[in-house]
């Protein structure tokens, strides 16, 4: 086995280590990376639905529901407790996911996307309008919660969020990976390719999609809670349609359907966005827009796909080229 053929297999652990070490070099980046993780988790939710060929333009809804649940919990208990925030946040995302999901899994494609959009805009409007309960468009503060009963200073808390988030992300990514490889995960994929056959196997496509929908809602919820505690504030903008679009954007950017792509995409997006808005304040949206166009037109498999074919090209000079390419793709997905 040559060194080159090892690279793809090591890529993800290497990237993880690099990300884990970054905050030591640039302390300010810790929170940015935490936010990237939060978005990555939510994007993973989008990826789950993309497996079924469905695109939700309203998934920021679950992000917001979980974030607000955590915020309400924090306010009700004067600070709150991180673990319960995560649990309650994710649970409420799942409950809302069930209510919304029962309706939307009856629809496909554009109607699926639009109905999700409608639900998210309703939640957005409610969050924005019912000022006395939700703090209106300014949102709610999320005070730094206790962690298992321990009060933490900001630097320690931020480190905990980042490294804790990283560990959770790795576990969740593995779990989603396994879910995709399970029978019901494969059935989810068949909603995209042939739903009729699935029904003719005696399986309810709606139920399969509902399971996927709940998984995606839970993932968005997890991302939402992490975002809420990392930022210390939740706003209705969490549920806005542009937020949902951003999640889909990142999913495509990273590599549609790819688990690791969700996080790679989120990381790249967050870095580009932060730097673009710092150094090209007038045109950061434009930069992101061109970036997105370039990806869709020239690299439809996203960053992960670019990486895969890059490794493949390097590898093809060696005897085990094909093998390296296959591994790179495998490692990527």
């Amino acid at each position, binding site marked *: 086995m040559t060194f080159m053929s090892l690279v793809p297999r090591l890529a993800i652990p290497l990237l993880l280590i690099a990300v884990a070490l970054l905050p030591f070099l640039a302390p300010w980046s810790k929170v940015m990376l935490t936010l990237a993780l939060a978005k990555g988790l939510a994007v993973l939710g989008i990826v789950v639905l*993309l497996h079924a*060929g469905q*695109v939700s*333009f309203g998934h920021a809804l679950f992000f917001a529901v979980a974030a607000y649940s955590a915020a309400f919990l924090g306010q009700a208990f004067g600070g709150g407790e991180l673990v319960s925030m995560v649990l309650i946040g994710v649970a409420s995302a799942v409950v809302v996911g069930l209510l919304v999901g029962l*309706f939307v899994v*009856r*629809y496909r*494609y*554009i*109607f699926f*996307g*639009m*109905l999700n*959009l*409608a*639900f998210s*805009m*309703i939640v957005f*409007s*409610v969050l*924005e*309008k*019912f000022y006395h309960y939700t703090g209106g468009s300014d949102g709610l503060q999320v005070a730094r919660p206790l962690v298992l009963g321990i009060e933490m200073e900001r630097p320690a808390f931020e480190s905990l969020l980042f490294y804790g988030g990283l560990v959770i992300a790795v576990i969740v990514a593995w779990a989603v990976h396994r879910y995709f490889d399970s029978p019901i995960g494969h059935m989810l994929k068949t909603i995209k390719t042939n739903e*009729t056959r699935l029904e003719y196997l005696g399986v309810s496509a709606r139920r399969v999609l509902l399971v996927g929908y709940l998984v995606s809602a839970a993932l968005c919820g997890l991302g939402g809670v992490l975002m809420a505690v990392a930022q210390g504030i939740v706003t209705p903008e969490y549920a806005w*349609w*542009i937020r949902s*679009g951003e999640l*889909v*954007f990142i999913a*495509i950017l990273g590599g*549609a359907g790819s688990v690791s792509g969700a996080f790679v995409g989120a990381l790249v997006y967050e870095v580009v966005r932060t730097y673009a808005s710092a150094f090209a304040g*007038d*045109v*950061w*949206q*434009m930069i*992101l*827009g*061109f970036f*997105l*166009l370039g990806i*869709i*037109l020239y690299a*439809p498999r996203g960053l992960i796909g670019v990486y895969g074919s890059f490794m493949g090209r390097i590898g093809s000079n060696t005897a085990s080229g094909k093998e390296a390419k296959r591994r790179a793709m495998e490692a990527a997905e």
Partner: protein
Amino acid sequence: MNLQLIALAVFDGVAYAALVFMVAVGLTLIFGVLRILNVAHGSFYAIGAYVVASVGGAIFAAGWSPWLAFPLMLIAAAVVGIVLGGLIERLLLRRIYDKEEALQILVTFAVFMILEDVQRLVWGVQPYFEATALQSLGNIQVFGVYYTVYQLILLPLVALAVLAGLRLFLRHTLSGRLILAVTEDREAATAIGIDTDKIYLMTFMLGAALAAFGGALASATTSVLPGIGADMIVLSFAVAATAGLGQIEGAALAALLIGLGRSFAVYLMPELEVLIPYLIMLLVLLWRPEGLFGVTQTRKI
């Protein structure tokens, strides 16, 4: 709520619906033919408004007749539709017709993001306000309340004219019939030798021009500022989806429904105002998944 207030709410709702219709009908037309949900549609609306507000501001300041405001709106809409719409269709959309729906929407989303910053670079971030057209028509008093003639009479008339014009165009001209043919059955239309490329281009330019025209008309009644496109696009999504995507007359009715719903909310429960369009859309789609006038399609096995 007495009769007077009901009448007032209806007037407000109709004026609002007229503007929303203009944008939504372009969106739905494009979807019907190209099968692409154009997120950048809101940008055409905004750019139409900006062009009229800035050019109008300049020429009226130079002492030109205020009546030029009306032809200016038409010209601005046509220019935005042909130049911007044409460029986007030829350079971008043409390359993605065979891609997945999600990617198509994202391409228009990217265009939307780019155009947002283009507007900011060209027109800055300060609001424009150019109400010459509105002022030149004066006010009218109804039930002791002053309305502008522009909003109460002109806008609904223009919307009706656009609706009638579109019907005429689609039913009674060759180009229009070709568009309808492609809307109804894309494969069949291609099979009988219709030049779909040309139809797509024409439809996209027409749809973009309608959105820009909506913006041009709105510019006389509102401030033109960054972000108006983003709000308008979700609203016109709601209208188009409520009507059934691709339904032109349906869009008029849905716009009216949403416009009236919104203005009655302002009178009865102001808190619900922003919620109304989405609630209406949701209820309609839950009851009729394809929208009020949409058609169900079954798959052949």
